[in-house]
């Protein structure tokens, strides 16, 4: 055994339990990639509406099905999570909120606001 074997190693990602901040950091990127697909759905909806009532109705009933609603709910949360965490990144870019405590706190703010926005959006969709 050489004397270098005792040096601290960086966390091995497959056995190291990632802190919430790290999980949500990679989720920010994953949500962004996922939203690129959501953008294609938006274009699909607009093309359907531009091509006439028949095809619009096809897309509309797909979106209104339970599976369509589930997918749209997923996109809604991904969208608001990416938005809120993006604002957090802009705040960091200005040089604020880098301390360990404030990073751990702002994770919860981001989660709370994105869940809140998702709930309010779906209340608007189903009640208003």
């Amino acid at each position, binding site marked *: 055994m050489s004397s270098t074997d005792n040096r601290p190693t960086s966390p091995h990602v497959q056995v190291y339990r990632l802190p919430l901040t790290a999980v949500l950091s990679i989720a920010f990127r994953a949500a962004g990639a996922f939203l690129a697909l959501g*953008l294609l759905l938006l274009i699909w909806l607009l093309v359907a509406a531009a091509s006439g009532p028949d095809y619009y109705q096809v897309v509309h009933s797909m979106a209104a099905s339970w599976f369509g609603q589930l997918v749209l709910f997923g996109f809604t949360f991904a969208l608001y999570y990416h938005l809120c965490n993006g604002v957090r990144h802009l705040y960091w870019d200005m040089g604020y909120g880098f301390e360990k405590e404030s990073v751990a706190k702002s994770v919860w703010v981001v989660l709370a606001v994105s869940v809140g926005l998702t709930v309010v959006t779906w209340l608007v969709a189903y009640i208003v």
Partner: protein
Amino acid sequence: MNLRTPLSQVKGLGAAKEGVSHWWMQRLTSIALVPLVLWLGFGLASLSGADYATFTEWVRSPMVAVLLILTIVVSFHHGQMGLQVIVEDYVPNEPVRAAAIILVKLAAVLFSVIGVYAVLKIALGAG
């Protein structure tokens, strides 16, 4: 010791000759997308269950058409920059990486033009 010329230092554009423009455009588009995304999210939610006539009437409103086009163009621009960074980070093979970035950028232009055309067709069409 610094081997860079005074001109290159004062321009501050680095080896890629574009300085921080990619980083800056990501931030600029994200600032623009904060109000646009909130508008679109709640706008589409209030249109849930809307029939063809209601939906196209919404798109035909000048403010909605303009905001929709802005949202499409800015989000595809933002999205292709983000996907480019993801590809650069996770695709080590140079030719595959270059091909993926080219594909992402061309697809972003294609789909944003399709989206803008669809909005204009609804907004300006005779319907």
